[in-house]
């Protein structure tokens, strides 16, 4: 596992995936096995460190890949997208969290729908 001083409470490893048009891609990842038996995965967009497809654009295939790697069922699996604060002068690069709900097509997660979360809500979900 790669380590990095920038890892934080929402990201403790890098995760590689094959993005759109097979582009080698990378995001941050945090996995929490919750006491209620569900698995929470937080995928962090790492911008310049990601050479390929951004997390949002590849959300459903990425979530499917993570879910399969973790040997979860869709019912057990919770997926959150995280964009970190880039300390930019522009407001669009602030920190955001989105809970992503999917439809299921056979064993694939499809049709992502995003629901904005507050950091406190994410923290609560991590502690269940």
């Amino acid at each position, binding site marked *: 596992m790669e380590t990095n001083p920038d890892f934080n409470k929402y990201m403790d490893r890098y995760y590689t995936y094959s993005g759109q048009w097979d582009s080698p891609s990378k995001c941050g990842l945090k996995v929490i096995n919750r006491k209620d038996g569900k698995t929470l995965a937080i995928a962090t967009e790492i911008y310049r460190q*990601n050479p390929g497809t951004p997390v949002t654009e590849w959300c459903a295939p990425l979530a499917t890949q993570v879910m399969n790697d973790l040997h979860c069922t869709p019912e057990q699996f919770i997926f959150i997208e995280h964009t970190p604060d880039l300390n930019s002068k522009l407001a*669009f690069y602030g920190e955001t969290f989105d809970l992503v709900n999917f439809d299921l097509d056979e064993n694939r997660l499809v049709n992502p729908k995003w629901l904005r979360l507050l950091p406190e809500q994410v923290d609560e979900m991590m502690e269940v």
Partner: protein
Amino acid sequence: MKFKLIYPRWEKLEGQTIFNLPPHGPVVMAAEIPQNIEIDFTDENVEELIIDESPDFVGISMMLTTQVKRGWEIADQYRKLGKKVIFGGISTMLHAEETMLHADSVFLGEVEGRLGEVFQDFHKNDLKKIYNFMSKPADMTLIGPAKRDILKKDLYYHKGFRMVDLFHASRGCIYDCYPCAVRYLGGRGFRPRPIDKVVEELSQMDNNRLFIVDNSLALDTQWEKDLFKAMIPLKKKWVSHTIEDKDEVLDLAAQAGAWYVYQAVFDTSDYIKNRIKQYHEYGIAVEGTVLLGLDNQTEDDIKRLVDFLLEIELDLAEFTVLAPFPHTKAYSDLLKQGRIFDTDWNHYNAGKVVYHPKHMSAERLAELYQYAWDTFYKDEPQTIKMFNLINKVVSREIVDGTYTPRRRDIADLSFGKKVPKVA
């Protein structure tokens, strides 16, 4: 073998001055087509496309999202005639899945060193559905001079004045700017061309006025300085996106022929004000590119921004509304928030509002967009401001001995069409 290369037309913004510049993508692609292939190029923005059975193979090069629907329509017609059609270019990459529905083949990525394979496959009747080079940027040393002799040059004159020719000195960008897809298209690294290759191409260009289309020249100071130093003897005059605001860079840029630069103006800060002033101190004019409809802008902010532009004496301003092009952060954010209400790609021209702005209705943003154009150009119309800029460059060319007079033989034509006489 005849290869028909087409650059589809798109609807220009209502009320704006129309300038048709010679396209860049097709001439870069043409440089990589094997020499034994006859290329017949049509830019539909300046001439009529006649669809017939004469070509053996058809290529459609698309830059803008507003070109894709027309590109697909052209492809459908050629395919009905039994012709194979391949798509390439920036907006093919942005809209690849949809484009594949209208294509025999799509080429994704950069062409250098790769088109020989495509034409061989065509000859073997074994064209692949996708040529995917998206994560394999071309070797920058392979980029030679673009093949500009496919262009019908007389069509890029307005009343005898020649338009700038497009040129590129680098690809890729290290930034993730909110409305921009260059990261997806050209990669996350800045990839400059070798200076000698740049000079070789510039030396061959018969047009003294250029638009350097690179996303930003301000990404590698040493390369930027070396580039400008090497350009000084060529005496070209050029327009570009951002240049670094270090004095030594601006001084070299001015000596190398910087005519005016596009500067994004996103707020009313002293930083922007000083930057414009600094460009002006070096004799470099500034066209502000002003994006309206961002989430941090209220109605009052937009009005204040327009007032600010007049205060800082921008030479020109170009207003656009945010268009959430696929593969941009703007698209991802607005998609996540369910705010995109119009997915007709013909409307993604940066003049129409296709999403719900945060602080106003879409209709109100459209009104403010018009207000911005009208207010900025109220006292001095765009044509006058442009004329002033042209005068500046002409004066410098006269001193340099590079001035080419207006062509009288086509002074009654604008982009190949007769200009109506004013009574």
